[in-house]
């Protein structure tokens, strides 16, 4: 791991007797794109606002480039921030909005103009400097807000759900644009979102949060493929759960809807007849008995959703319903509801989850 650029230690925040952030620790390297991901109310915004200086931590510390900024005022931290509601100054045109921080920093008019032009080219809106915020679409306004935040060359960029006020289509294109600009400038970025797809698609690393603490910290593929807890597994991506009962603890056999299958291992403490639950991602399931899959189960198609290139099936195995996607094969008709179906998976793809 390269030298630490942002370090948060034992960060805690209480509002009254309500502790919303519980001793959070993390550290990131320069240039990383970090997402704080978690459900509503888990304290993501509160952490970001403590980094920005808008909230004072109850305890703990925040360091940037080795400097303790925990008690600095927001205007002394040299950070850039983009807000959910754009927050452009309504009385200023685009050029003056982008130049605002530069003017505060005492930059001269010519230099400011040059920097503003450079920023407008960066966000793909050259020639927009005379427009006012109300004359632009939401996506354009948010790009201007991004340009305004990075124009003064902040040490770090903070984004609080910058895409959630936008329509779905722009949300996707703008997040790619944000990532491209971030990579281009190499600016360390903390991005807050409750959208797992957003976090997975643009982050170097993700901090998955729940109820004020960190559940897991890792690269997108680590968080998705090796969720540390059941919460992470269910919050990031879709998770299937199969209720099974132990048929023979000695032989690692379990019964699922009357069908007995052997597993590589069982949780310690499993005895014959006890109930266990197995968890797995939809994509490890295949329709039919595919080579290499050692668990084969017979079920019934409970539901079929045609999504174009992909067909999403829900397969009933007794009281369990599993979700899986198959590619649309143009030569065969999709399965129909009520039809019997065989599904298979490799037992090594089962997720073993800690609580």
């Amino acid at each position, binding site marked *: 791991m390269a030298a630490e650029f942002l370090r948060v230690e034992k960060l805690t925040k209480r509002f009254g007797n309500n502790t919303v952030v519980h001793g959070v620790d993390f550290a990131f390297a320069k240039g990383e794109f970090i997402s704080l991901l978690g459900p509503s109310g888990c304290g993501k915004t509160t952490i970001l606002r403590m980094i*920005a*200086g*808008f909230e004072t931590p109850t305890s703990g510390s925040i360091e940037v480039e080795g400097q303790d900024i925990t008690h600095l*005022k*927001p*205007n*002394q*931290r*040299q*950070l*850039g*921030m983009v*807000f959910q*509601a*754009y*927050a*452009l*100054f*309504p*009385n200023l045109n685009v050029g003056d909005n982008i130049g*605002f*921080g530069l003017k*505060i*920093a005492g930059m001269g008019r010519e230099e400011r103009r040059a920097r503003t032009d450079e920023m407008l080219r960066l966000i793909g809106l050259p020639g927009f400097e005379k427009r*006012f*915020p*109300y004359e*632009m*679409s*939401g*996506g354009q*306004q948010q790009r201007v*807000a991004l340009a*305004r*935040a990075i124009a*003064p060359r902040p040490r770090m960029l*903070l984004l609080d759900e910058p895409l959630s*006020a*936008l*329509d779905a289509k*722009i949300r996707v294109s703008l997040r790619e644009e944000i990532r491209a600009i971030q990579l281009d400038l190499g600016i360390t970025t903390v991005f807050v979102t409750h959208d797992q797809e957003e976090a997975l698609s643009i982050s170097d690393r993700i901090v998955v949060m729940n109820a004020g603490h960190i559940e897991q910290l890792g690269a997108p593929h680590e968080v998705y493929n090796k969720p540390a807890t059941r919460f992470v597994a269910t919050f990031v991506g879709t998770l299937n759960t199969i209720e099974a009962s132990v048929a023979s603890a000695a032989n690692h056999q379990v019964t699922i809807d009357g069908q007995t299958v052997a597993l590589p291992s069982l949780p310690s403490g499993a005895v014959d007849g006890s109930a266990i639950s197995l968890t797995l991602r939809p994509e490890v399931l295949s329709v039919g008995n595919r080579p290499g899959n050692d668990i084969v189960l017979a079920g019934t198609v409970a539901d079929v959703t045609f999504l174009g290139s992909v067909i999403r099936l829900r397969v009933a195995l007794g009281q369990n319903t599993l979700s899986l996607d198959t590619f649309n094969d143009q030569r065969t008709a999709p399965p129909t509801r009520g039809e019997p179906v065989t599904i298979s998976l490799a037992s090594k793809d089962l997720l073993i989850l800690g609580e």
Partner: protein
Amino acid sequence: MKPSRFWPWFTLLLGASYFIIPLIATFEFSLRMRRGYYSFDAYLSVFSDPRFQATFGYSVVIGIFAIIVGVLIVVPAVYFVRLRLPWLRPFVEFLTLLPLIIPAIVLVYGYIRLYNSSSLIPFTGSALGTDVLLVFAYVTLALPYMYRAVDTGMRTIDVQTLTEAAQIMGANSATIIARVILPNVLVAVLSGAFLTFAIVIGEFTIASLLNRPAFGPYLQNIGANRAYEPAALAIISFIITWGAMGMINLLARFAPRTSARTD
């Protein structure tokens, strides 16, 4: 079938005539100074009166100072209450209503007791001191209007987020108020200013008891001693007040426009 438009119009006209008939009568009377003709003689007589010019000029100057002081007090106060002490808002709102409840005469007697020439702060000891006192009295009188105008203006912008956006870019509170908050509530501030002006121009009680040569006492004096001029002055005051109100309406068009969009 179209619903009848008769009754709504009838009610409106009935209500309007309640205000308009006396106004027309006053206007008609103001034109009758010269026997047998309609003329603007009463207006000429008013405008050529040096006391009219002096008192009107005096009140305009006092009004301008009252506006400046009012803005300097109210804008930061509303801003900080909204930003840092939102729980204080109902209390502040009540406080700013007090000038409407407490009669001006009570206010001015309080001033005279507190600031008379033998007191610790003898504002009334000099003409300038009394002018200052008069300005403060008018700031107080106009407070309910100024406060409400500015508060409404700040409701249309997201004060907290705009403040934070400016702060993170390095701005301090003074810069934020001057460059971000004030420009965005300017229209509201100006409408508060015109209301203040309308109040100051016609105010009688305080100016008279502080014995200052203001327009209000002059109006009263003319009203008691002349026949046609008071009618002309009433019409003039009315036009000034309505001019101020018209400006407020006109300004509303320049209020900051919302830019909340999802596309």
